């Protein structure tokens, strides 16, 4: 996701090719009117068009490709989570992510995008773009966001972010959540938690945006937000029966690793796509994303080696996801060396977050949404304030190591505001949904598994191999 301020910055940064084109165009109009009088009629329309932002096909190609990449992350997340649950909950875990795509894709078009991005107040967007504003969000570029691509491209790219955020939460309360409760919660949560937060951080009139807290691709909006909300939900829904004594190992590690691979793959769209242009900044974001992820995956493996004698694939993958999370807010503001530091930090923070911290606190965060997305997102948002530099993105700010200690403070305001807002509002929603349909299935349903009890489906039928 692109930080608004960066759009202008982008333009400055890539002055020599994008601005230049526009200038050439204007110059052209002038010249044409002198030297090529016979072409006046033709250029008239052109001159008018010259005022409106035009589409750069390269930028649009990258943004559309990025949108597709981010889409595949959500089913990838389903596999990542699904591989870690017990067989009897596999279908449900996949379904929880999959249905979010179905619901939010429609909700976003109807009112979600408007609440998040339409000009409104400091807190939330207006309603003028509901249903895409009867064409207001159309094939022409917006003059607010991503001015070189169709407004629809920007809208659908954002849609994919709104989709994956609630899907991330499902890891925390996996194996013990009623699907009816989840169905009800999704649209409520998207409207009351996600939309305001996205507005705060990315809309040009959002308060955090104006305040100057940096978040390139969603460290707060996506990761802290999902972790804080998940935290509220697991306090309401309680621990799994038998946790922690009887917890069973992941049922399918290849699916887990495939999910991780799809996440890593899609995350290039997530972060580098947030430059909303096929620019140098996109390339930079792409590079730091890859480097931080790799560093974090490696760090986690080393820590496992030290603490448990053997590095596991679950560890390497967990580390990679932690790295992806941590680099997200920073990806458009830091250079490659900083990204290694962020990655190593993410590996360390999330490793201890999922082991020591979780054990100490005792909550049942089934697949470590808090330990990875909460801790990693917080570290990433903080690290952005440490390592960010205008050498990478002139539209950003310099961070602590470049002497601007204040930026770290701004980042922390953003972090804390996000944690509190999301935790608070989600608690209210959880209370409401619990009152209406109940959050938790019966003990018998939990024992026989979510697949049978919620879907009457069984993930694998190998046993009926023949006949």
């Amino acid at each position, binding site marked *: 996701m692109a930080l608004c301020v960066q759009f202008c910055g982008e333009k400055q940064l890539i002055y020599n090719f994008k601005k230049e084109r526009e200038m050439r165009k204007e110059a052209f109009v002038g010249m044409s009117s002198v030297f090529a009088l016979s072409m006046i009629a033709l250029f008239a329309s052109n001159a008018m068009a010259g005022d409106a932002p035009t589409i750069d096909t390269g930028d649009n190609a990258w943004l559309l490709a990025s949108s597709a990449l981010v889409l595949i992350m959500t089913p990838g997340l389903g596999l990542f989570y699904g591989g870690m649950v017990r067989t009897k909950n596999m279908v449900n875990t996949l379904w929880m992510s999959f249905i979010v795509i179905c619901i939010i894709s429609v909700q976003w078009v109807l009112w979600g995008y408007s609440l998040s991005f339409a000009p409104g107040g400091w807190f939330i967007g207006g309603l003028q773009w509901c249903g895409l504003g009867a064409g207001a969000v159309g094939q022409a570029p917006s003059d607010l966001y991503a001015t070189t691509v169709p407004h629809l491209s920007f809208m659908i790219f954002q849609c994919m972010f709104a989709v994956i955020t609630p899907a991330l939460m499902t890891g925390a309360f996996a194996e013990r959540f009623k699907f009816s409760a989840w169905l009800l919660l999704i649209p409520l949560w998207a409207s009351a938690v996600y939309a305001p937060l996205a507005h705060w951080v990315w809309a040009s009139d959002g308060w955090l945006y104006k305040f100057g807290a940096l978040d390139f691709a969603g460290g707060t909006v996506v990761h802290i937000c999902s972790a804080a909300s998940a935290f509220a939900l697991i306090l309401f829904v309680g621990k799994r029966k038998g946790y*922690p004594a009887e*917890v*069973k*190992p*992941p049922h399918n590690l290849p699916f887990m690793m495939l999910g991780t691979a799809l996440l890593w793959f899609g995350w290039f769209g997530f972060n580098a796509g947030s430059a909303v242009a096929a620019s140098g900044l996109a390339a930079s974001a792409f590079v730091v994303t890859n480097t931080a992820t790799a560093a974090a995956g490696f760090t986690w493996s080393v820590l*496992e080696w030290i*603490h*448990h004698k*053997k590095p*596991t694939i*679950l*560890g390497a993958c*967990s580390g990679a996801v932690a790295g992806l999370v941590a680099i997200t807010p920073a990806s458009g503001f830091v250079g490659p060396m900083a990204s290694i530091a962020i990655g190593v930090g993410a590996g360390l923070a999330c*490793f201890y977050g*999922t*082991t*020591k911290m*979780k*054990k100490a606190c005792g909550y049942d965060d089934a697949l*470590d949404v808090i*330990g990875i997305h909460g801790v990693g997102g917080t570290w990433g948002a903080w690290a952005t304030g440490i390592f960010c530099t205008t050498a990478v993105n002139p539209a950003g700010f310099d961070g602590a190591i470049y002497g601007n200690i204040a930026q770290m403070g701004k980042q922390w305001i953003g972090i804390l505001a996000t944690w509190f807002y999301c935790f608070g509002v989600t608690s209210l929603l959880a209370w409401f949904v619990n009152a209406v349909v109940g959050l938790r299935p019966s003990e018998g349903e939990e024992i026989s598994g979510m697949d049978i009890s919620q879907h009457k489906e069984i993930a694998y039928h190998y046993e009926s191999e023949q006949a």
Partner: protein
Amino acid sequence: MKKIEAIIRPERLTIVKDALEELGYPGMTVTDVKGHGAQRGITEQWRGRTFRVDLLSKVKVELIVADSDVEKIVQCITKESQTGSIGDGKIFISNIEDVLRIRTGERGEKAI
């Protein structure tokens, strides 16, 4: 007739099977099972959580044989699947009252 049920290490199955075939007792039924005896499970560690896998994979080999062949076969299996360390498994012998070959309907010893 007797039923010989041997619970052995999965990695020994091929060797045992080949040895039995050489002895000339090809008929056998194999089942994947899990179990523990003196051998305790292994511990898997993920994200700081400890999963004790205390039922380890074993293979159960069942052979129905004539009374006179029991000793020979038991010796053969023991020899081929012994490693001397915990987890080698056990052999159980019980009585079978009748056998029927579905293909032909033959019964008794000649159906084995």
